[in-house]
């Protein structure tokens, strides 16, 4: 025998953990392209710094745990690349670096590393950055203002339309600009069309499952249409919220992070719904302008519980099904006799 240790089944799917995560990285590339288009080199440099910090701290943690680092595990890269996209392009380098180090060390590796994290690392990293430096994270440079790539940016920063919404006002931006992403906002997630493309790419590639985003976006859209929090019509409120809010990006990339997502499809639906409910109530009652990351952290607590209840329900249904089936077949045979 030349090859040893093969276990059934002997034909395997071609997807590997590497390709699954690579799909997410590929889906993030257009967002970086948009960020580069709007803000120039600084956007790319922020992404690079954050990713490097994430990878380095991941390797360090792995070594500290006494394991061998595994170069094909690119999950820290995904976390590191997601983080700066949610922040302003003018954010100082130490913000993204410490956010990604926090995400990897205190959220991912404390709970056992890849696939076992109880909380979403990217969401926690962003929440940490917001808690530490809300002004730096939430004050944005204008698109095409070309912030310097390496120096600190201090001038020409102002708040985004999300701040207006948060204050209960209607944004003054043109709707077309909003749809095309040409407004003050997080560097990578202003263009909703690109985000939608990413969603379809990931769904088509099978990198994410449809249940959680379907429930999440369904409830979010209905809530935005029926109960706008600003004095405007439902459709306009939806446009404003969807373009300026982080929940569209979060519902595509962060909600579906495999480690924290429940495993059963029914509990995924419930999970998406729960995330939507928390996001909406955090929006209404919270004191932070972008609340999705916080709401997601709270939702993560219920991930395991939802799975457990789903399993319990399934067990009961299975037993009822089997019982009725045997009863039916007994009845049939009795009729024949």
């Amino acid at each position: 025998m030349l090859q040893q240790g093969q276990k059934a089944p002997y034909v395997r799917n071609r997807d590997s953990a590497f390709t699954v995560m690579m799909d997410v990285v590929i889906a993030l590339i257009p967002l970086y392209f948009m960020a580069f288009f709007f803000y120039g080199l600084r956007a790319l440099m922020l992404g690079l710094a954050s990713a490097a910090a994430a990878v380095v701290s991941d390797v360090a943690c792995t070594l500290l745990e006494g394991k061998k680092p595994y170069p094909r595990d690119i999950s820290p890269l995904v976390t590191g690349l997601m983080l700066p996209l949610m922040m302003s392009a003018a954010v100082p380098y130490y913000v993204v670096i410490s956010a990604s180090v926090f995400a990897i060390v205190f959220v991912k590796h404390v709970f056992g590393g890849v696939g076992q994290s109880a909380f979403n690392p990217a969401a926690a990293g962003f929440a940490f950055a917001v808690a530490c430096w809300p002004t730096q994270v939430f004050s944005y440079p204008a698109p095409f203002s070309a912030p310097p790539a390496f120096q600190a940016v201090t001038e020409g920063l102002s708040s985004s339309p999300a701040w207006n919404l948060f204050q209960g006002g209607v944004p003054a931006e043109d709707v077309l600009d909003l749809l095309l992403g040409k407004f003050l906002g997080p560097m990578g997630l202003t263009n909703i069309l690109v985000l939608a493309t990413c969603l379809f790419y990931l769904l088509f590639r099978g990198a994410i499952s449809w249940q959680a985003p379907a429930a999440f976006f369904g409830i979010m859209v209905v809530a935005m249409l029926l109960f706008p929090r600003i004095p405007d019509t439902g459709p306009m409120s939806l446009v404003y919220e969807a373009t300026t809010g982080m929940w569209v990006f979060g519902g595509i990339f962060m909600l579906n992070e495999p480690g924290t997502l429940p495993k059963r499809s029914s509990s995924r639906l419930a999970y998406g719904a729960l995330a939507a409910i928390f996001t909406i109530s955090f929006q209404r009652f919270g004191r932070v302008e972008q609340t999705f990351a916080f709401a997601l952290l709270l939702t993560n607590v219920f991930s395991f519980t939802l799975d457990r209840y789903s399993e319990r329900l399934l067990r009961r249904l299975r037993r009822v099904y089997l019982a009725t089936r045997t009863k039916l077949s007994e009845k049939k045979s009795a009729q024949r006799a």
Partner: protein
Amino acid sequence: MKWVAGFFTRGIILEQRKEPALRRKLRTFLNANYAGMLFDSNLPCDGAALSGDQIIEIARLANIVDERDGLFLHEKLTKAKKMKIRVAVGDAIDDEPYVSSQMNPLLFLQKEAGEGLRLAAKAVGNPKIYFAVYKNLSDLDLKTKIPKEIDGVEVRRIHGRYPAEFRTMDDFDADGPTVLIGVCSLIHLYRAVYEHRIQSTCFVTVAGSCVANPTNLEVSIGMTPTQLFERCGLAEEPGYVIIGGSMTGEICEDPDHYLVGTMSRAVLALRDEEKKRRYQCIGCGRCAEVCPENLTPFYINRYIELGRYEALAFYDIHRCIGCGTCSYVCPSKIDIAEHIKQAKGEMKRRRQEREVG
């Protein structure tokens, strides 16, 4: 019931890779000293003249074993007769990749298979008869056509995704109690009735990425995999040899001395081109999405890894049919099915120990 078993089934769509073995003619490869062994009987060599009990007696004399489950055919028929069977199905489902050792004989020995099924039906009290063949054979050759009717018997296609064999019963259940009999044993039954031949051969697919001419062979029982590979030719040195299907089969450690039997069904010589990379579980939950029994292999595997066997009962581990879909889809290449199999054995051992102690 049918629509449940068809479109809405859970499982995986597999590349079947049955060609070219399926379209090639069934060949024989016999040991001279075994060929044509007959049993003594003064029953007539004519199916129409025999009664049902006589057919069962012949099956007993010919030592026919059903390749589906390894039972003796006469035992199976006796039991089926007692149960007042309404449907008898000739099973040529072959839903695992590479394996076509039931479909190929069905296609090339149509008369024998059809007559064999009718004989078996007569033995269990004349129920309705069908052949069952898997439907999702997407990569078949154009030449291979699976007819709607074989020797006057309707061929039913089993729809749905990969583990199809375990839910064949559901497809026929509507008509009443069903018995499934392997097509190969039906062919042997035909031979036993008309020629009084003892079952001394079995049908085996020799295939795999290392085999030069994948073929279905009728071989004498007791040949070794090495002999079969010599017959079909090896394109390259096999990485490993498998007896049985490519999804659920077992590794053959010693191809020079292993003896191919009725239950073997396929001998595959495979070689993985890529080095198999193992990852940590990323928790994607694909295993739970595809599990045909709707279990959650993710948690089962996690609890097995932690050694917490007491938690496994909650996840209904006993419902696992061992089809291997979870291991197939796992992007981290974890051998979930193997772990579950071992854990089941371990749990059984512990239970016995408790009962004894």
